[in-house]
């Protein structure tokens, strides 16, 4: 962790970055995020992860919804589909169903994922669609200029909660664990190299992988989820932590005041494509059932 907390000076690393080649995964469009936004770590982390995994740009599809985080596909040089608010996962499921060989990464913010799109999460998770879902959670609606989100903390003042937010925030990690996402992890935008490693691990996982990324909104949240606060709150998972223990993962996920970074849970079970293949096998063996034509 101490290693991760050390500041990184781009000037010193410029040559190293150029030589590395991961910048090839960036598009010519410059990100539209505010200076200091936690989402810049997404661009860096994602490209580093693709480089690490050696995926070619044309075999990767980034699917996003609507919101600040969802602008991401424009900033990378892969196939991309910037869809509708909340519909990231079903579109990504369709892309993957059409072509198993593609690496499909769904990206969105907390409003896109847990408010309008919350109904799709259980089904992508339980079907174990072999895609990766990166949710950049800043606890606020940024693109519409600062309203309360499902992960906004109690007492948070925004333009739609001028007398303080009174709605209990939902716990994304517990939600995803309860729905049996087969890989659940958490990272922090302030630790970009750890984030890059986590994205790479999430993509490499066979099945539905969910990575929760704590990310400050520097423009509309000056009080709660700030770099200053998060730097002090985040911690490692305890030593000897067993990532196959669902109950232990739930326990860690409940500790919201001091969010842990790392892989909470991992299991191996058949993916949607495996189920489809098995269905095709059974269909080939059984006689045509009667009815209809």
């Amino acid at each position: 962790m101490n290693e991760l907390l050390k500041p990184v000076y781009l000037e010193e690393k410029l040559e190293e970055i150029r030589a590395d080649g991961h910048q090839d995964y960036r598009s010519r469009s410059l990100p539209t995020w505010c200076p200091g936004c936690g989402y810049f770590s997404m661009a860096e982390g994602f490209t580093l992860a693709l480089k690490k995994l050696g995926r070619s740009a044309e075999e990767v599809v980034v699917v996003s919804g609507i919101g600040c985080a969802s602008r991401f596909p424009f900033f990378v040089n892969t196939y991309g589909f910037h869809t509708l608010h909340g519909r990231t996962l079903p579109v990504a499921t369709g892309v993957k169903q059409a072509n198993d060989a593609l690496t499909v990464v769904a990206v969105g913010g907390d409003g896109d994922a847990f408010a309008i799109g919350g109904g799709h999460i259980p089904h992508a998770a339980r079907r174990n669609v072999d895609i990766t879902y990166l949710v950049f959670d800043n606890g606020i609606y940024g693109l519409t200029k600062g309203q309360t989100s499902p992960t906004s903390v109690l007492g948070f003042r925004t333009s739609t909660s001028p007398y303080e937010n009174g709605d209990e925030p939902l716990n994304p990690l517990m939600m995803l664990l309860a729905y049996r996402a087969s890989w659940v992890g958490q990272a922090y935008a302030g630790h970009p190299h750890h984030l890059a490693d986590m994205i790479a691990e999430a993509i490499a996982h066979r099945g539905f992988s969910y990575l929760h990324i704590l990310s400050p909104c520097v423009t509309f949240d000056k009080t709660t989820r700030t770099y200053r606060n998060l730097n002090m709150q985040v911690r490692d998972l305890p030593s000897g932590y067993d990532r196959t223990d669902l109950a232990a993962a739930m326990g860690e996920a409940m500790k919201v005041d001091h969010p842990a970074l790392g892989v909470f849970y991992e299991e191996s079970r058949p993916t949607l494509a495996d189920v489809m293949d098995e269905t095709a096998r059974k269909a080939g063996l059984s006689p045509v059932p009667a009815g209809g034509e």
Partner: protein
Amino acid sequence: MNGTDVQFAICGSAGDGTIAAGDILKRTMALMGYKVIAFDIYPAEIRGFGKCISRVRVTTEQAYSLKHQSDVLMSLNDAHAIPHVGEVRDFGAVIYDNAPIARLPEGGHVSAHIRPMQLPYGVSFRSISDRATGNARGRNIVALGYLAGLYGMPAEAFHQTIANKFATKPQAVTDANVRAFEAGYEAAIGTFKLDDVVMGSPLHRADGARAVMMTGNGAVVRGLMDAGIDCYFGYPITPATTIMERLAVEMPRRGGRMLQTEDEISAIAATIGAGYAGARSATATSGPGLALMAEMLGLGVMAEVPSVVIVSQRGGPSTGMPTKTEQSDLNMAVFGGAGDARRIVLAPTNVEGCYRCAGLAFELAEKFQTPVIVLLDLYLSNRYETVIPPKENPFEPKQATGPQGPVFRRFELTESGVSPRAVPGQAGGVHTITGLEHNELGRPSDQPDNHVAMSAKRYRKLEPATRYPGLTTIKRFGAAGKVDIGILGWGSTFGEILEAMFEAENEGISCSAMKVVMLSPLPVDELEAFFADCRVVLVPELNHEGQLATLVSGTLGRPVVRLPRATGAPMRVDEILAEVRRLAAETAAAAE
């Protein structure tokens, strides 16, 4: 019509086996080589006391719809059948159980409602079934046997259909049903036949081609399969569910993938996702599901992604009447959603059309890079017709995709409006698509000139669709040239329109009919020519306000006479005919 033309109506309560008896009857008639059109009406409840009617029209020559009068009514439940006695023609027959299970009140027997010119046949279905099989459950099959015996139909053909129907059940079930059928059949032998209903021999085609019986939804499935559907995503909703159920059986056998999604929004989202990734993908729903899909269809238009959406309409608005037919989603299919989002909408008028439209929808979706809606309604989805399957697969395989040139412009402003397309996995074609207005490269842009050019492109590219080869987008029937009355129609109602038009012609009324299959974009030139030829244009359709009438008269700026009917039942031939007669008298009076 020369030759055989007999319509049977079987009416009972849910659980009486009404639909099953009708099913055996229509399958046997098709097996024998007759042309069949059949439609069942059933309640939304699975059990209980809802009314079921199975109507089967059996002909030797092509028929286009059910008749408004039946030749034979068979009652399995008198309370439900009494309101339908009136639909039996003079010298037609009413067959009923003269010893029903329950004691009926005064006037509760169907026999008390039979008019003097209708011929009654009272038979004890229940006791015959009891004697033949040991219980009363076979009374529907007894009744069917009686009907077959009365009209001299060959019993062997029925035995075969009964065996097919119960193929998955133990042999004893088939045997009991055959015994029940035989007992009913024998009861009819020696009955003195009073009615004038005659079943002639079926005609056999010179080319030896065998017709198969299919529903509209069944034909949609065949069309999708023959066109090589890769992915299907759906959510159960009456009356579209049978499409998903059949694809669930067939797609895995051919390497396709069927996924039941969590709602209609995800069904269309995944359909568009798969379309983007290069698959032939489709979904099917009804009006309430289409309402949920509206936003995603807009994305399909904006991001120019091919997809196919089958919509089977039912009574609306809201949950409406799920098991009743209606044509009231035209507006939503053609216009639904945000912004200027023109898409292709096809409305087949018969079962064969369902097959063509479903298959060609994939071709259109790819060629024009847009969502294509195929609009059916419950009456067409569930209606059985005998059709001759095509000898060869009529559909084109998937179009090749791939980047062109060193800089790939996914939304290049071409003359036709159609741009080069690449799909994920193809080298050199990397691009991002979006629901935001975008430039030729697909990058977000809200520049005024760009929005004007891109909107024009999305409209321009669809114009040639109305002349797509192999697709009947609009067609005129009956007299060519100038006529007094033109009848314009769409969807399932067009069969009734044709029957009414032929009858009006026989009566000497100058008339002609036109069906519009492509509702968006509208084949405006053909419509203009039709309006120019007709003194009056009548538009019968199954909705409250006349949605096609509004669309066409608004587009052409011409007046129409509306005949909107939204009862939940199909349009009646005699209703259309009455309106045609009235208009013919009016135009004649005006001419004098």
